[in-house]
């Protein structure tokens, strides 16, 4: 009997699969592994097990794999090569000098990565070993989570997370639903309803079913499949499966005692695992500068080695110099090939000079970034008491990029505005209804209506608001019993805050939505009667249609369709004579900055409904192109409606949004608003945020302007682009870099508006040549405008815009800020992505580089933190190159005096310790603590941000300056001591100093000069700076005494024995050290004095300050005018 059923299913498959045969990417799952095993050869498909592996290494492969990965970094590889050369070839310095630091770096990194991997192992194990209940042959079996196989029926209890992706078969709730939060997946903490597959048996033991579904794919919100349920002696029933039937691994069961589901995707094939992927690494501009500088230094290194090698052989060709009698060559040297010797000589010189590119720079830069990023998380100004969270740093690689931003792309809803919707007014049948203020609320709802006409229309409108949504009522008990909370505290949960605002709005006017119970919607009407509507279909909202509908059946048996959506999507679908009366209101509301929605309805006749019902069901069952098919049916159904009214919902501006925008613009940052909202709303937000000023001339490039008059859109687009380009680019006065503010300059101030449709025309113009020129025109116009507004953008278009600007001339640094899932693409695309911990879930935060609770924090993040980070790291990089140049230059010069024999000037200990101990801490402290201008001043004077714009401190100019400084210092150190040593008898007892004394004097001057140079640059002396700078110098002296004070048993040569102490006993050595330090720093001191940093700066700052102040003042005056006028 069982088998016959199976055959039936089989046959049915053949039939259905016949169509889908080409789709190899679908899988078949037998629920509970109960399938037709007997008659047909049933080969259970191989699916991966339910183990989650996020760790990279195992105990066995850790060492080789980790080392391989570390040495793939070009710097580490370079140091490894140097080390190997030192081991193989006879070189001046022992392999320890470069091996020790490299070993240190590699070990520390390996330990860090090993620890992180151990944590991942632990987390994996916790998930993989978690006990779950699996139903097998009627028994409940406890298993470890990793042992779940595809096809297992798994039982999950309340507040547990799902161990794999499950199809919901059975719920303890009567209505076959269960509630789920996906907080750990996308951060949305609202309860989502999921449904059991309709008509499945209550007894899962007797359920014989096969599920056919697509192969795993990462989209969390997409799932298509169907279920063939084999009933005894009947044709198998086919049920469609959608995302509402799929419970995702990682989500948590809520408000439901327990559910049973069948595993469809396990382990690494679950949607969560597929979504877990490392973000692409973003590299900062500073890092690119470092690499460029490195290249220069590499060239210096190679040319130094080449020069020395060449000169060595030229010098040796003179008679008597190659092999003086006192320095005979060994037999091996004599035997080696001349060219091989040249090559090894070259390598030896490379090794001798390799300290010019220090290992420690990478370590210090990494440390600086890692430790520095803590200051963002620690900043209490970023703490938001509302959500009890501060800022979040997801990557520390981009700290300095925050100081380089030229373009800010911001989302509107939830970013500029609070996404905290409030129902403001509505318009029914052309009459405006305005909810007054809180005081009149007491008088009862009906009295608070202004105007008013036919009560029927009103009630219809309010019913529509109550029914046409997907809101859930919070406080609905597990058993389905409705707890009646006081009216105002009733909690609504919805994916979109607009819907909550509308339902709440309707509630204020007397129609309360009580909840959805077993497919019927309960409404408490004005007379406190409960009305019941059977919910037949929900035609979901999607951004393309920009509307959603419900089909309900009222008690009286009428089938009604309620539809709400954007005006542009509703107006064409309703009777035109109704439109005019409402359009005016909608447009006025939009200019006031409200979000408007139009509400329409339609009574469906029995045939109409039957047709729609069939269409919808069919489309929902489709495995292929389900979306498209559904869309067609939706479009068919949502026609010929009649317009009832429109709503206006206010979305308040974020705290200090306008101030923040103004500060950003003052800092020379161009702000672009990218929103999916409609133009009027977005425009009014821009005015409110002072992105557009009263005197801003708006250049509009939208569908509306394109349709004015001209015969062809293409032509019109071309004309407009050229016209705007002439206006904004050609006729504009040349943009002065620096302090001139666009509004303070006499020129015009332009704002540019473009919408999604026009943008795609610009970007994807028909002809290739046009497309490029349009793109250029568009970019040039935009770059000359103070702010740009792009409305009606699809998420992908947002990313396109960011990419366009990112890749434009000069490759400016871009920053994207947003809070919703629709901003993720642009957050990932921009150089720096900022997520706002807003209401629209956590996806933006998860994908961002930095997350802040509010928009207003952006100001401090960029102007204070970003500025400081940039200055710090730029100085760090330049200083590092400088200090190593003047470290190695004397060693290079010494080759000219030692017969090019690769004799090191400094002792091996000094060579090794110079970068690790003697000079590393002061610069690290500087790069963490320096505030060349204090934070308050930076925040108050946005124009200061422009001074570091365009990578100002890491361009070739400053680099050349630092390089010259390094060369100057190096020359001074070497030749100063060289002249002193023209008579090496430097002690008052007539004894002479040798070569190690020479090197030690140079090294002492070097350490002191380099450290004091940093001390001169330090503008912010905290006790840490004092401690570290003076501590380093003291440590150097102490170490030198210590190192030279003992005969070290492990050293082959006691080169430095008492050299330092003897040096200090010589007055001449003291005097030359003081002389050289002062002489090296003299130009620096003069520069500091003559630069007069406070004079012009202070004045400039003050001037700008007053300027901005007067301007904000006038702006508020101007701005208030349109607001008042619109309130009439």
């Amino acid at each position, binding site marked *: 009997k069982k088998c016959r059923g199976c055959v039936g299913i089989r046959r049915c498959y053949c039939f259905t699969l016949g169509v889908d045969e080409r789709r190899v990417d679908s899988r078949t799952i037998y629920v509970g592994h109960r399938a037709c095993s007997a008659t047909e050869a049933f080969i259970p498909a191989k699916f991966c097990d339910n183990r989650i592996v996020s760790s990279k290494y195992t105990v066995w492969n850790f060492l080789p794999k980790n080392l391989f990965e570390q040495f793939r970094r070009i710097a580490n590889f370079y140091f490894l090569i140097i080390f190997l050369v030192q081991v193989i070839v006879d070189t001046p310095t022992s392999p320890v000098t470069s091996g020790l630091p490299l070993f240190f770096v590699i070990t520390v990194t390996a330990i860090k990565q090993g620890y992180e991997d151990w944590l991942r192992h632990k987390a994996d194990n916790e998930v993989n070993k978690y006990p779950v209940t699996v139903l097998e042959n009627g028994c409940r079996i406890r298993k470890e989570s990793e042992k779940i196989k595809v096809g297992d029926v798994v039982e999950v209890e309340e507040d547990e997370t799902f161990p794999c992706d499950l199809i919901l078969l059975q719920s303890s709730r009567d209505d076959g639903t269960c509630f789920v939060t996906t907080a750990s997946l996308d951060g949305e903490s609202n309860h989502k309803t999921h449904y059991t597959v309709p008509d499945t048996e209550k007894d899962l033991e007797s359920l014989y079913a096969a599920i056919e579904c697509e192969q795993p794919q990462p989209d969390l919100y997409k799932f298509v499949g169907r279920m063939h349920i084999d009933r005894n002696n009947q044709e198998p029933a086919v049920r469609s499966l959608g995302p509402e039937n799929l419970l995702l691994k990682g989500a*948590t069961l809520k408000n439901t005692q327990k559910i049973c589901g069948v595993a469809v995707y396990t382990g690494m094939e679950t949607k969560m695992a597929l979504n877990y992927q490392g973000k692409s690494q973003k590299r900062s501009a500073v890092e690119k500068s470092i690499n460029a500088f490195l290249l220069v230094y590499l060239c210096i290194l190679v040319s130094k080695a080449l020069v020395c090698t060449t000169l060595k052989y030229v010098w040796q060709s003179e008679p008597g110099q190659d092999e003086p009698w006192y320095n005979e060559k060994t037999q091996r040297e004599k035997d080696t090939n001349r060219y091989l010797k040249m090559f090894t000589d070259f390598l030896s010189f490379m090794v001798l000079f390799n300290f010019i590119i220090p290992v420690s720079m990478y370590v210090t830069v990494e440390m600086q970034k890692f430790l520095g990023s803590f200051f963002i998380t620690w900043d209490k100004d970023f703490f938001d008491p509302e959500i*009890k969270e501060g800022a979040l740093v997801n990557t520390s690689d981009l700290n300095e990029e925050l100081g380089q931003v030229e373009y800010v792309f911001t989302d509107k809803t939830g970013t500029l505005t609070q996404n905290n919707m409030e129902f403001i007014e509505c318009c029914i049948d052309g009459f405006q209804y305005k909810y007054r203020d809180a005081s009149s609320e007491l008088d009862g709802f009906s009295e608070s209506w202004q105007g008013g006409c036919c009560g029927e229309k009103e009630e219809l409108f309010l019913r529509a608001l109550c029914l046409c949504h997907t809101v859930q009522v919070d406080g609905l008990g597990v058993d389905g019993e409705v707890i009646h909370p006081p009216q105002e505290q009733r909690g609504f949960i919805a994916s979109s805050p607009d819907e909550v605002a509308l339902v709440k709005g309707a509630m204020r006017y007397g129609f309360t939505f009580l909840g959805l119970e077993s497919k019927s919607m309960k409404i408490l009407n004005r007379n406190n009667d409960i009305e019941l509507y059977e919910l037949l279909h929900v035609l979901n909202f999607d951004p393309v249609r920009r509307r959603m509908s419900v089909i309900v059946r009222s008690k009286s048996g009428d089938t009604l369709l309620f539809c709400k959506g954007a005006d542009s999507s509703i107006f064409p679908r309703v009777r035109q004579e109704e439109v005019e009366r409402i359009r005016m209101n909608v447009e006025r509301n939009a200019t006031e900055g409200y979000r408007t929605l139009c509400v329409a309805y339609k009574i469906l006749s029995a045939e109409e409904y039957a047709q729609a019902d069939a269409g919808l069901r069919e489309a929902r069952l489709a495995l292929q192109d389900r979306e498209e098919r559904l869309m067609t049916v939706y479009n068919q159904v949502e026609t010929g409606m009649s317009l009832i009214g429109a709503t206006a919902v206010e979305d308040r501006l974020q705290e200090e949004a306008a101030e923040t925008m103004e500060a950003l613009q003052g800092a020379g940052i161009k702000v672009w608003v990218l929103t999916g909202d409609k133009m009027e709303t977005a425009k009014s937000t821009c005015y409110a945020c002072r992105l557009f000023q009263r005197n801003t001339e708006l250049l509009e490039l939208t569908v509306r302007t394109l349709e004015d008059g001209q015969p062809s859109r293409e032509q019109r687009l071309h004309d407009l682009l050229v016209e705007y380009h002439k206006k904004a680019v050609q006729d504009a006065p040349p943009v002065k870099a620096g302090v001139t503010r666009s509004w303070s300059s006499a020129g015009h101030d332009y704002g540019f508006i473009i919408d999604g449709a026009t943008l795609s025309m610009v970007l994807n113009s028909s002809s290739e040549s046009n497309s490029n020129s349009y793109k250029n025109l568009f970019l040039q116009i935009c770059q000359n405008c103070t702010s740009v507004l792009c409305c009606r953008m699809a998420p992908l278009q947002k990313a396109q815009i960011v990419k366009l600007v990112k890749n434009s001339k000069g490759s400016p640094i871009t920053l994207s800020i947003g809070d919703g899932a629709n901003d993720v693409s642009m957050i990932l695309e921009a150089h720096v992505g900022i997520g706002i911990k807003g209401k629209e879930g956590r996806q933006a935060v998860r994908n961002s580089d930095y997350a802040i609770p509010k928009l207003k924090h952006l100001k401090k993040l960029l102007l204070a933190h970003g500025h400081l980070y940039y200055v710090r790291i730029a100085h760090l990089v330049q200083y590092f190159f400088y200090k190593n140049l003047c470290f190695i230059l004397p060693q290079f010069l010494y080759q000219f005096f030692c017969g090019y024999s690769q004799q090191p000037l400094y002792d091996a200990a000094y060579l090794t310790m110079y970068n690790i101990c003697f000079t590393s801490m002061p610069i690290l402290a500087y790069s963490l603590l320096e505030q060349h201008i204090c934070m308050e001043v930076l925040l108050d004077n946005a124009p200061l941000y422009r001074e570091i714009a365009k990578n100002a401190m890491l361009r070739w100019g400053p680099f050349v300056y630092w390089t010259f400084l390094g060369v100057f210092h190096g020359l001074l150190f070497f030749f100063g001591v060289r*002249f002193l040593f023209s008579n090496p008898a430097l002690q008052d007892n007539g004894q002479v100093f040798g070569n190690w004394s020479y090197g030690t004097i140079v090294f002492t001057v070097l350490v002191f000069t380099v450290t004091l140079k940093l001390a001169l640059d330090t503008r912010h002396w905290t006790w840490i700076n004092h401690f570290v700078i003076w501590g380093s110098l003291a440590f150097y002296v102490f170490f030198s005494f210590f190192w030279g004070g003992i005969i070290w048993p492990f050293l082959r040569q*006691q080169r430095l024995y008492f050299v330092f102490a003897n040096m200090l006993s010589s007055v001449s050595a003291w005097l030359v050290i003081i002389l050289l330090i002062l002489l090296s720093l*003299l130009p620096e001191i003069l520069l500091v004095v003559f630069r007069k940093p406070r004079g012009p700066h202070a004045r400039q700052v003050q001037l700008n300050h007053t300027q901005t102040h007067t301007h904000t003042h006038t702006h508020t005056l101007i701005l208030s005018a349109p607001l008042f006028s619109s309130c009439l």
Partner: protein
Amino acid sequence: MVKQEQEIASRPDNTAFTQQRLPAWQPMLSAGIVIPGFVLIGLAFIGIGVALFVTSQSITVMELDYTGVERTSPCFRCSDPNVKNCVCQLDFSIASLFKGPVFFYYGLTNYFQNYRRYGVSKDDDQLSGDLDSFTSPSDTCSPYEYDSNNKPIVPCGSVANSMFNDTFKLYQIVNGTKKQVPFDGKGIAWWTDYNVKYRNPSVTPLRDAFNGTVKPLFWPRPAYELDPSDPANNGFINQDFLVWMRRAALPDFRKLYRRITEGDYAQGLPAGNYSLEIAYNYPVLSFDGRKKVVLSNVSWMGGKNEFLGIAYLVIGSLCIVMSIIMLIVYAKFKFPEEE
């Protein structure tokens, strides 16, 4: 499954450090500080410079080249590498008292004691008296590790092998007779080298320690016979040896040979005629080098060195000039800081 934990992020610490508000001192290099500072530094430097310059001027130096390149040179005969055990005499006169104590240096030019391979060619273990290294010297000593009979060389290596071996005797000609000026050979090497770093093996007599080893090829006598006059000045702690082993920094160098501190010459070399008797052994012409003898007295700053004094004077005056310029600049721009 895993119970959801509502983790409440605590408010960030409100400490001066985390908020980047550590009390800090901002240095202000204003004109009010810099100009007087420059003047002070300038004056101090000029003071030191004058002292250095005067001191340096007061130091007498006498250099005598005895390489024997020129035919007229008394040592020309000796400069022929084929002539062995050659002694030549160099006569000179001193016009006025050469104030003592006089230091007697020998100098070499174009001699690369700082050659890397040369420098590492020694065995510090051996030189600190380790008998194991006597029998098997470090391979850094190559090619002066073993002789042709494969016997270990002690002290091994190029540095020891090439030890300077010219010897000098200074005579004052008093009434036609030579009166030897006594040399003091003690205290010419670093105290630490003599007392700590270099040690003879604790074997008495010292020559027993050298059994089975050979002297460096270039040496006329083994290490334990370096100074026949003073048994304590032999082996690795021979002062001349120590001086030689401390490698010079530059190819033109001088090394201390003797001091003249005793007897009639404790106050210096009186005016008169002198004769320097040189046992000419050390070949330098093959690499175009020069040999010289330097007589010098020293001061608190060491030997004569014009550089330091002049440098201090220049920098000092530069500071003064700078402060004057700054004063003018600031007077003209009316001290913008103090506004």
